[in-house]
């Protein structure tokens, strides 16, 4: 299935901006606020003249009004690096009952394509990290249309398999994702070790966002007959009559989601939930939309 975003979705994406919550200070011209102030396009502040400042930075109109020397400072804009971290363990292969042709992984691919689109339109660097049972698959960060094609190619090649790998196999992730980078994790968020990893990354000053992709079956639990529920990662099985265990499951699932949310908040991780049967840009709006300055 080609990664084609419909035009109306593209139009809505155009209004979004990837905004890191932690200002980074890499050099270069870009859209993101940086800690380093200096010459730039966006006004930041006036400050008192100090010896050594360039004379052309002095705001002469202000001097005329206040009879003091002020220096006009701008925020320097710098590009950030956006990392897409896809959780393609076996649970990503789950499909909805109503739409068996579209798995969680397909949805994750499209979400990643949306983010790539956003990064591309703001000139940010972006890279891809995919975690599956084998370990880590990686497209190093870069920018431009060719980088997008590389990422798309890797996205197409992804298969849902295995469980969460051991920590050693994820070491390249620490090497690649630098402090200050925006790490957008797209996955189901069911793996405890995965959440722990995100918390560690957030503590290590990476700007971590979790885009939790959940199926409608997980939300509604529409099973009414007896079923053998099987965990695709562990192979564990639970037999149950859908109607009988439904309410209990829904309650426990909602509790778990609330718990995860508060845990992420405590860890400084922004999060949004994307349902398989809802538009792709809905969680992105919640995360990067106008009016919400994270």
């Amino acid at each position: 299935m080609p990664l084609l975003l419909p035009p109306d979705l593209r139009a809505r994406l155009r209004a979004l901006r990837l905004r890191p919550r932690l200002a980074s200070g890499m050099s270069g011209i870009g859209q993101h606020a940086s800690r380093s102030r200096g010459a730039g396009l966006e006004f930041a502040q006036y400050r008192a003249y100090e010896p050594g400042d360039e004379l052309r930075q002095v705001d002469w109109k202000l001097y005329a009004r206040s009879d003091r020397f002020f220096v006009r400072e701008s925020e320097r804009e710098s590009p950030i690096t956006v990392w897409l971290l896809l959780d393609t363990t076996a649970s990503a292969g789950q499909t909805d009952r109503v739409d068996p042709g579209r798995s969680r992984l397909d949805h994750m691919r499209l979400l990643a394509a949306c983010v790539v689109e956003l990064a591309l339109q703001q000139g940010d660097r972006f890279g891809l990290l995919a975690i599956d049972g084998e370990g880590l698959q990686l497209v190093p960060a870069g920018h431009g249309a060719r980088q997008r094609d590389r990422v798309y190619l890797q996205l197409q090649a992804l298969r849902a398999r295995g469980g969460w790998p051991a920590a050693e196999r994820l070491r390249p992730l620490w090497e690649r994702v630098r402090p200050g980078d925006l790490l957008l994790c797209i996955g189901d968020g069911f793996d405890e070790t995965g959440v722990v990893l995100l918390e560690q990354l957030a503590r290590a000053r990476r700007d971590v966002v979790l885009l939790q992709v959940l199926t409608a079956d997980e939300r509604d639990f529409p099973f009414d007959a007896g079923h053998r529920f099987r965990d695709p990662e562990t192979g564990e099985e639970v037999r149950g009559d859908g109607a009988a265990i439904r309410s209990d499951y829904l309650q426990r699932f909602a509790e778990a989601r609330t718990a995860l949310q508060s845990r992420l908040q405590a860890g400084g991780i922004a999060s949004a939930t994307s349902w398989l049967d809802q538009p792709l840009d809905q969680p992105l709006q919640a995360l990067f939309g106008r009016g919400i300055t994270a």
Partner: protein
Amino acid sequence: MSLLFPLGLLAVAAWLLPLLIHLARRHPYTPVDFAALRWLRARIRPRQRIRFDDWPLLLVRLLLLAALALLLARPALTGPEPAPAAWTVVAPGMDAAALRSTEDLRNWHWLAPGFPPIGQPAPPGDASLPSLLRELDAQLPTGTALTVYVPDPLPGLDGARLQLSRPVQWRPQPLAARTSQAVPAPPRLRVRSDAPAAAQHWLTALQRAWGAQPLAAPLSADALPERGETGVWSSADPLPTTWQAWVDQGGSMLSRAAPPAGARLLLRDAQGAPLLWEQRLGRGHVLYLPREWDAGRTLALRDDHLPRQLLQALQPPASPRLGDALDQAPQRASLPPAVPPARELAPWLMLVILLLFALERWMASSARRRRPA
């Protein structure tokens, strides 16, 4: 409706098979991939009540088996067939078109084996009409009026008077009788050459009395009479085996020997003493006249009626087969009620079974198509 073989219904016991299949085949726990398994708490309700999978398919299968069992039980319809109010039969050889123009046009049939409708070409009319009428009377349900067109004179009569269970509108139509039976030639006697002269004299007189013909030349010692001739054994000895074999194959003969035990007495003479016996021998028959064959000494041989009686014994006169149609009009008789032949439903049942089988196959295979593995 009745069953000709009710034990066939025992085949319904085969119902056990699909019932068991549909019970055993149920697998209530279809596997589902579910990543959020840890929030599921296993709670299987004990659901032990009997539940059949796929009950429409089960129903069709049960119906199919029931139909098969019914087929084995051979159901038949015995009730009265929906009968027309009136039948009209026309003897073959008559002009049906001319007759029909005068009458109601429905239910006209030929009076021929099978009673074909009048629209078909006229069948050959060599079957006996009274016999056909009796058959038709037995087949038709009571209450159906019968109109019969027969030729006058009526051919094909048999020994019994025509008696039917219903009133019949008898419509003889004059029609020339087609065949007049030829009078058979009188039998020709063939005597052996060793017969006494007195016997030959009497036999010659007998032959002349029948047909104004002389007696055929006597046979030599060992020769047998020709086929069609009447052999004469003029001595009192029993028949030799060659003659017995000849009679056995359909010959008829006159013997002077004493009649054996099983012989039937045919004639007595004027004094009342037994004179002539007959015995069937294979396909032929032997007449025994154990007197001295000498017309001068045996009074019985001089009887005027003896040649005619002997001729009747050798050639029984054919019963009349042609009669005046009005005289032969059927009489009303209270015959036992006709049992209409049971009509078996096998072809229709086979059709139902085939349809059910096709439906079952379609349902079974389409159910599998709906659920890809």
